[in-house]
């Protein structure tokens, strides 16, 4: 296989993977949202849907939802503009899947003379691509609001598009600060430069060279702006239930509603990926650069096993106490289910411990170090992404909704000046350091 064919296959495969990644995250995210909101509000959350008695702590509810949404009546309002009405959900979904193409899942690795890249598209314009794609996302909302021919959806669409445009500015400026610090626009370059340790004035600080430490203000601006961009609480005025019923997707039912719903969650997954890639070092494992991981596979294995042990034990323990402390709540739940799952966690922990114990005896085949490093980096990135997914849920069930004038004031009178000031300070500091 010549290198060109290999690159083509590599890019195609990664494109498919990056398109599917948000889709894979959506059921998990919805489950997280439901269970997270439940435990925040002292509830149990969904626990009823089952397949042959297996409930997986409410995860089966997503399948039930899919079936429900697919079987519902697919309504098109008679006075709606049919073409644009149909176009809107597809537009929203398509646009929400595109930005992930530039996010690298792991550092490129060399296997058998070929370089495998874990990034679908390495555009020269890098992160600007993401900004431009997200700016196209407004049209889905606007179209849905206008084409449904309903005053509530029109109001929702107008609100949400005004909000998205306003916060795009702060988001762009926060990214510009990052570009100034890392001296590049390409996403893989930004992630690579986050692998080293933080140096300030010639001193090396015991902190990774992450965007959150170099641009703390930019990080908060980007985070808040991404909450607003995804129309997420506390900025979900587009669907202010108390006044607009459901906002721009009020007239959508069945599959079309499912598309909007999925687009919303997929947007959040993309935001989580972007925040962790730009500001939390992406795939970089803190304090262990890619070279370290590739050259010392023992270290990689140790970290992997350590993660396996801790997570296995934590998950096992949580599920065990769940199984122990059931009131007759989940009546009809198979009693063995939590035990099996907690056993799996425990098994993961024990297996990791065993590998760790015998790791000095393992001789690595030549391809193994790079693959292990890539695996660890992917797990690291996914951990960060899951954390941000949880943050989205956490904030949603904590914050009340903003009022519209407060939202606009925050965007234009607080965040935009702060972002500009952040740029100024960053520029001055960079000049002094030179």
């Amino acid at each position, binding site marked *: 296989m010549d290198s060109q064919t290999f690159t083509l296959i590599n890019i195609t495969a990664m494109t498919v993977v990056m398109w599917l990644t948000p889709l894979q995250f959506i059921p998990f995210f919805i489950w997280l949202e439901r269970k997270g909101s439940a435990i925040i509000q002292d509830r149990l959350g969904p626990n009823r849907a089952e397949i042959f008695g297996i409930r997986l702590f409410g995860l089966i509810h997503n399948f039930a939802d899919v079936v429900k949404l697919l079987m519902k009546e697919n309504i098109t309002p008679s006075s709606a503009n049919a073409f*644009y009405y149909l176009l809107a959900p597809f537009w929203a979904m398509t646009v929400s899947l595109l930005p992930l193409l530039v996010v690298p899942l792991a550092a490129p690795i060399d296997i058998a003379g070929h370089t495998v890249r874990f990034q679908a598209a390495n*555009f*020269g*314009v890098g992160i*600007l*691509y993401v*900004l*431009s*794609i997200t*700016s*196209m996302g*407004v*049209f889905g909302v*606007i*179209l849905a*609001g*206008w084409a449904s021919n309903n005053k509530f959806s*029109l109001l929702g*669409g*107008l609100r949400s*598009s*005004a909000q998205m*445009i306003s916060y*795009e500015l702060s988001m762009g400026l926060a990214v510009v600060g990052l570009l100034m610090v890392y001296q590049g*626009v390409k996403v893989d370059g930004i992630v690579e430069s986050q692998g080293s340790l933080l140096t300030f004035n010639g001193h090396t600080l015991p902190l990774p060279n992450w965007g959150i430490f170099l641009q703390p203000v930019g990080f908060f601006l980007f985070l808040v702006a991404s909450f607003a961009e995804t129309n997420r609480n506390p900025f979900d005025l587009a669907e202010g239930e108390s006044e607009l019923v459901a906002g721009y997707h009020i007239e959508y039912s069945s599959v079309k509603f499912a598309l909007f719903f999925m687009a919303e969650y997929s947007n959040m997954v993309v935001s989580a990926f972007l925040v962790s890639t730009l500001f939390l070092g992406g795939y970089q494992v803190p304090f262990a650069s890619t070279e370290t991981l590739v050259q010392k596979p023992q270290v990689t294995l140790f970290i992997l096993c350590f993660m396996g042990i801790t997570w296995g034990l934590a998950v096992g323990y949580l599920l065990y106490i769940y199984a122990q402390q059931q009131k007759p709540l989940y009546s009809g739940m198979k009693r063995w289910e939590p035990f099996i799952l907690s056993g799996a966690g425990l098994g993961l922990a024990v297996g990791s411990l065993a590998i760790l114990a015998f790791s000095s005896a393992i001789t690595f085949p030549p391809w193994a170090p790079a693959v292990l490093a890539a695996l660890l980096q992917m797990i690291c990135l996914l951990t960060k992404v899951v954390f941000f997914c949880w943050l989205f849920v956490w904030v949603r069930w904590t914050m009340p909704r903003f009022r519209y004038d407060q939202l606009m004031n925050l965007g234009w009178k607080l965040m935009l000046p702060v972002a500009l000031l952040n740029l100024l300070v960053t520029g001055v500091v960079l000049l002094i350091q030179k």
Partner: protein
Amino acid sequence: MLEAVVFYILAGVLVAMGLMVITRTNPIASALSMVVAFVALAGLYATLSASLLAIIQILVYAGGIMVLMIFVIMLLNLHPEDLKPMRARAGAVSLAILAVLGFVLGPIFLKVFPSGQWKMATLFPDFGSIFTVGEKIFSDYLFPFEVLSLLLLAAVVGALVLSKRKL
């Protein structure tokens, strides 16, 4: 061959959407066709290795100006009698004049500048990227750039003065 296919697809979309813009009765439909036209134009810029401009085209035109336009169209509660279709005679006449002009000027143009006259130059690396364009702006065109920021400020203030009911 691939370049030709890409060019003709993008050009076809661009011209079709341009025609849609001027023929649709409903301004929203026009504006959305315009968005698609801009995306096609961005693609054409990309084939001319102007990657930064392609992104700017989508970011500013499609994501900014057109959203503003659609926003205003929705904001003004247009009466149905406002939505007049294209005036067929005026459209036909203007297109006819343009076609005649094209048929007169086109051959002259092609005579003076034959198809093979211009070649795509060999490019220096990073042509059209954010760095090279930025370097050009902040070295040779610094003054116009600064003046431009003044213009934008004036536009912002002007728009505010014009559209706000009570200052």
